[in-house]
């Protein structure tokens, strides 16, 4: 397993990552390429904000009526000949998948990329009953060889550079492979070709499930998902229960938003819509098809006004690529299957232990880059604050911080006390100020001054200077331009009518 797995606190895991130059360079390199690609794609689209809002509306509507659309999807998929299963928990989903594998006496399963199967640790479960599971997405294949978990929703091996990958694949090949992308991909392609042909089961995730026809849609670039869904006799698809969209018309919006947000592509190389198993007139496709719809904590979010929008996520990874914290610490530091801003909120939300879960919600400066990047406008930066608040409300705040914040409330809640505290600070700091700055590394200044010199309190605060300043500026004799005055009066009038509140 990776050195950066779920052990320890987020701080300890981040520490490991911050000291790993390879990781930091690799993550920075790729996230930068992706986010710039995304920004360009959005700009070229020309009408991005409007489509983003359309995407959000589709997701809001679907999730608000999830029971209806899920039922419709299940009905239609069954009519197409799909075996549909519903798994309330992760354990149940695993049990169903294993039962299908056993009923086929499967020896090998080829998989296309699926974060849900990562969430369920399905590969391990298959291995435990003697079934070999082979990842066929290049990044996932690399991660599997390394015995690690994905550190990014769409680029699982983002934390590895070309040379590290060449080393891994060379070991597998039994010969030294050059660190050249074409050579490395060529080796994997040849290797996987055999696996596709001998596999008993093809296993996939699902990008979107279309309620009106009971179809499932996959986006990919390597063609491996097409192999997985056409060659083996049996297909098992695992999907989160929120993957639904109502119609193919809605897919047009999603197909516009997803690839652009994920990689900056206008479209992925392959987009496959699959409606049931192979029919007699079809040239290929599985004879038997199963769809396992997974809840595993998702329905906890339904009806929760602060977190329901989490279910709108289309797993594009744009928030990871935009996040400055992710850029520095990578995905494993987040400690869950999903990383980055979405992972920081989704992991505790899925586990329904918002209050107890780590302090991953604190690993954010709340800069809002995730929200700005998100194609369906999920307010992740607000949700991070809600997580922190729920933790405090549940009494899981850190003791020292709680004392500090109570003190803050008392001091800043009363202007008189605040003024006195400032005076005290102005006197006290004389002991530690050198050369107009504070370099002391104690208490809360310890972390700050490891990277900075702290400023000093002003000799006289603004409050202390105000009376003099007021006297001085009172006599400038400058009067207000009548046009400006009229504008300000008009704003006041607008406001009184209940308008005019919008500015900025």
């Amino acid at each position: 397993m990776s050195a950066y797995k779920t052990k320890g606190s987020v701080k300890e895991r981040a520490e490991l990552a911050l000291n790993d130059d390879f990781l930091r360079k690799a993550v920075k390199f790729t996230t930068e390429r992706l986010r710039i690609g995304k920004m360009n794609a959005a700009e070229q689209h020309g009408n991005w904000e409007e489509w983003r809002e359309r995407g959000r509306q589709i997701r809001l509507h679907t999730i608000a009526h999830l029971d209806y659309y899920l039922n419709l999807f299940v009905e239609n998929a069954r009519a197409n000949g799909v075996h549909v299963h519903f798994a309330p928990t992760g354990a149940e989903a695993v049990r169903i998948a294993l039962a299908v594998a056993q009923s086929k006496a499967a020896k090998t399963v080829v998989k296309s990329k699926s974060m849900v199967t990562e969430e369920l640790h399905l590969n391990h479960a298959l291995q435990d009953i003697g079934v070999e599971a082979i990842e066929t997405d290049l990044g996932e294949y690399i991660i599997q060889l390394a015995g690690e978990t994905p550190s990014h929703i769409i680029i699982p091996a983002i934390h590895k550079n070309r040379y590290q990958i060449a080393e891994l694949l060379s070991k597998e090949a039994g010969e030294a492979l050059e660190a050249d992308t074409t050579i490395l991909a060529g080796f994997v392609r040849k290797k996987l070709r055999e696996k596709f042909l001998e596999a008993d089961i093809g296993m996939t995730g699902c990008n979107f499930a279309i309620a009106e026809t009971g179809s499932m849609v996959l986006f990919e670039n390597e063609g491996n998902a097409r192999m997985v869904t056409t060659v083996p006799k049996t297909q098992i698809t695992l999907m989160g229960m929120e993957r639904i969209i109502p119609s193919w018309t809605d897919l047009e919006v999603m197909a516009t938003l997803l690839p652009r947000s994920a990689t900056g592509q206008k479209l992925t190389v392959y987009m496959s819509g699959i409606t049931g198993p192979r029919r007699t007139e079809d040239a290929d496709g599985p004879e038997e098809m199963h769809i396992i719809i997974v809840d595993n904590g998702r329905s906890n979010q339904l009806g929760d006004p602060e977190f329901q929008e989490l279910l709108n996520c289309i797993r594009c990874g744009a928030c990871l690529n935009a996040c400055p914290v992710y850029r520095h610490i990578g995905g494993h530091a987040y400690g869950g299957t999903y990383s980055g801003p979405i992972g920081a909120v989704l992991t505790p939300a899925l586990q329904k232990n918002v209050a107890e879960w780590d302090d991953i919600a604190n690993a954010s400066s709340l800069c809002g880059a995730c929200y700005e990047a998100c194609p369906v406008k999920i307010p992740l930066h607000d949700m991070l604050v809600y997580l922190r608040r729920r933790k405090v409300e549940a009494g899981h705040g850190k003791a020292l911080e709680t004392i500090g914040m109570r003190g803050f409330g008392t001091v800043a809640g009363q202007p008189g006390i605040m003024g006195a505290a400032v005076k005290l600070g102005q006197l006290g700091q004389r002991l530690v100020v050198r050369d107009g700055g504070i370099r002391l590394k104690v208490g809360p200044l310890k972390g700050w001054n490891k990277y900075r010199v702290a400023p000093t309190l002003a000799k006289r605060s603004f409050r202390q200077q105000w009376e003099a300043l007021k006297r001085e500026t009172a006599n400038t004799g400058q009067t207000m331009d009548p046009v400006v005055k009229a504008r300000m009066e008009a704003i006041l009038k607008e406001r009184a009518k209940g308008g005019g509140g919008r500015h900025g």
Partner: protein
Amino acid sequence: MKVSLFITCLSDVIYPRVGEAMVRLLARYGVKLEFPRAQTCCGQPAYNSGYWDEARKTARTILDAFDESDFVVSPSGSCTYMIHHYPELFKDEPVYLEKSNRLQEKTYEFTQFLVQVLDVKDLGAKFPRKVTYHPSCHGSRLLGVKDEPLELLQHVEGLEFVPLPFAQDCCGFGGTFAVKMADISGAMVTEKVDHILETEAEVLVGLDMACLMNIAGNLRFRNEPVRVMHLAELLYEGVKEA
């Protein structure tokens, strides 16, 4: 017409020169700022850390202090945006909810007030230096102050503007984040300062003293002589020089 200054804690106790620049600049347009002394902190540190009861306590001082004001002007996009959270904080207290909605309407970040209300873009300032600009996250992304500072800078005579690479990236401040996750925050501010140094600017200008304090602290730590200023200070120095 009562126009009040919402000084914000940092400008009050560490950077009073920013408040002074605002008062003197606005006086040139006949705006006599008032300073309600009952104001303290907007409550953001407590709000962001999840201590909403404490946030409400300090938010009340702000709501009461500015109850009578017609316009409120502040030197921080972040503290201005904090007021947009007040309706959520006071959703169960009708009196303060009403005050919250009104305060949100009347509060402007400094450059918003200059450009949108006073319609001033050219202050007649002169500042013959190489300058770069860091747009703080809350002000630019959440409050939407994007064009105003650039327009103001464009009109400063002699100023050579150099765009900051990856300008929109957070500087790593994030309030208590800088203390709680010191090493991540440290990595972020280091990267930000690397980008600033790349521009070879003599002056870094911004609209939020919290972010600027963070960046200035790292510059000083690395003995880099880049001068860090709030835009109000730059403009005030510029009009004195002109």
